[in-house]
């Protein structure tokens, strides 16, 4: 009974956090269609800021739920080491002017989430972004959004599992193709999400459109223009980079992660 309540509460927290995330990312489109009265009041300018605070708080709540009361030494050590390795990959992104927008960190986040589960994947994504920001000097207002999105990428990776099971593809090429597709999708999605964060600041407060009579569709059109101009190419490069990286290192990495999963998994249960 308690377990049922606990899991439904967990699900509620996951859903609420996701909902707030979605609202936060999409709200600029709805601003122009809101009643004029609220627009002229004093709150329009600080809306992005207030929303940022709300997102950060929700993120904290989600992290509390995912972290649990305590993490075992095995989880802590494994996360610490994997996060360190992955954060160093971020240097490649910063130092090597490779394909624009490509970030090698998603490959491991997705593979780790896929093998070790969503909870682990979420922390892997979140903490990779945090640690790499600390070591590359990339702490900025975008950080919570980056952490949130990368966490989502890791958390959603186990969604591939039922498909793989359905195709009986474990350890085969089909599994790799599926993960490559997943990596590709997240490459695009991450770009879109990060743009949405940027959007309210670039597009400015909504009042300039209100007078102009901009509609929901016009807002989206405007975003699309911005997106096409500034980041579509980058995002495609990022998505292809993810897929390519998974294609190259995917199968051996999966094998290594599976091998060690067995080693990390043991619990001692006393003989009664």
């Amino acid at each position, binding site marked *: 009974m308690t377990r049922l309540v606990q899991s439904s509460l967990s699900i509620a927290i996951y859903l609420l*956090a996701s909902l707030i995330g979605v609202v936060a990312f999409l709200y600029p489109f709805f601003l122009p269609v809101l009643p004029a009265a609220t627009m002229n009041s004093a709150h329009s300018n600080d809306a992005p800021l207030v929303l940022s605070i*709300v997102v950060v708080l929700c993120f904290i709540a989600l*992290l509390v739920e995912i972290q*649990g009361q305590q993490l075992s*030494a095995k989880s802590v050590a494994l996360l*610490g080491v994997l996060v360190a*390795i992955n954060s160093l990959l971020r240097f490649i992104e910063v130092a090597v002017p490779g394909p624009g927008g490509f970030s090698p960190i998603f490959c491991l986040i997705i593979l780790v989430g896929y093998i070790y589960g969503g909870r682990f994947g979420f922390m892997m994504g979140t903490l990779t972004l945090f640690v790499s920001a600390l070591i590359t000097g990339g702490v900025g207002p975008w950080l919570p959004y980056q952490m949130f999105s990368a966490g989502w990428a890791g958390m959603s990776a186990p969604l591939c599992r039922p498909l793989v099971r359905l195709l009986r593809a474990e350890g085969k090429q089909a599994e790799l193709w599926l993960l490559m597709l997943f990596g590709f999708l997240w490459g695009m999605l991450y770009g879109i999400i990060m743009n949405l964060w940027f959007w309210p*600041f670039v597009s400015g407060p909504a009042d300039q459109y209100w007078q102009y009579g901009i509609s929901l569709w016009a807002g989206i059109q405007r975003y699309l223009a911005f997106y096409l101009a500034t980041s579509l190419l980058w995002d495609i490069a990022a998505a292809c980079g993810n897929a390519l990286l998974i294609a190259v290192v995917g199968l051996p990495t999966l094998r290594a992660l599976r091998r060690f999963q067995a080693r990390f998994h043991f619990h001692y249960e006393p003989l009664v």
Partner: protein
Amino acid sequence: MKLHPLAWVAWLLSTLVALSVTRNPLYLLIVLLCIAIVGNLSPKSQTRYKLPTALFVLLLVTSCCFNALTVHYGNSVLFRLPEWIPVVGGVITLEAALYGLLNGCVLIGFLLAFQVIMQVLTSQELVGLLPPAFYPIAVVVTIALGFVPTTIQQIGKIRDAQAIRGHRLQGWRDWLPLWMPLLIGGLERAFQLAEAMVARGFASNDRPKQIIGDQIALVCGMLLLLAGWFVRLVWGLGGVGIGAMLLGALLIGLTLWRIGKRSPRSHYRTRRWHLNDSIVLLASLLFAGLLLAPLDLLDRRSLYYYPYPELSLPEFQTWLGLCFLCLLTPIVVSLLNNPKEIGS
């Protein structure tokens, strides 16, 4: 003397508030100047790379062009683009271009403010800001930060080791012999580290589930946040919205505090809280409150500079402008304390 990390966070928050509530170019200029002064005069804790100037220029140009091209509003028409082009077709106005420029300035302010924080605080201090409830995560981050130099050494070893068995880097696939030993070595290392941590008193198994009370508090907190934000934006009920949001934040904060209480830890390095820290904290809070409070205590109209439909000169209220100088408190307190340390 260095300020407490929390005091710096308060300064950062108030700077962000200041940046996001105003589009008045005069006030924005004051904020940017304050950030630059604080950034240049505060003692640096470690060298980190600086954001390139080119990035700032790029931001300004993008933001200016984009606003000008997509907001076809304002009386000072610069030129016209053919109407048939979607989104960008129409009049291009000076007002829209100027507004875009202001947006760009706000963004640059954000970046600079964070850069100051990265300069004055070390990574350890930033990790130390995590609340006690996130102790496991703080340990993960500490391990990761400590493991970075070792991993770099390891990469060198692996590169050499693969070279001596005839490995050459030519194509994509050739990264695999470098990647796999790194990953496998890391996993082995993690296993040994976990064992060492257990031997020193770390728990060997997960205690995964939350306590129901905490979970309920979290759900309620999130609901309140969402509702408050909604009420405030859609119905314009500022007071109610802020109240609900504050309550939600309080609930989440309280839960964090309770979780932290349950597994107490002590700290080897703690920084004492000094009078200076209180001054900075107080100044930052007062300033942010002044800008945000849903009360009409003060006349804040000049914050909302609005160039449409006809470009006008921004208003400037001297006392409000003076309030923005609160952002200089970190430098002022250091200056009062020990003028020699400045800029070292």
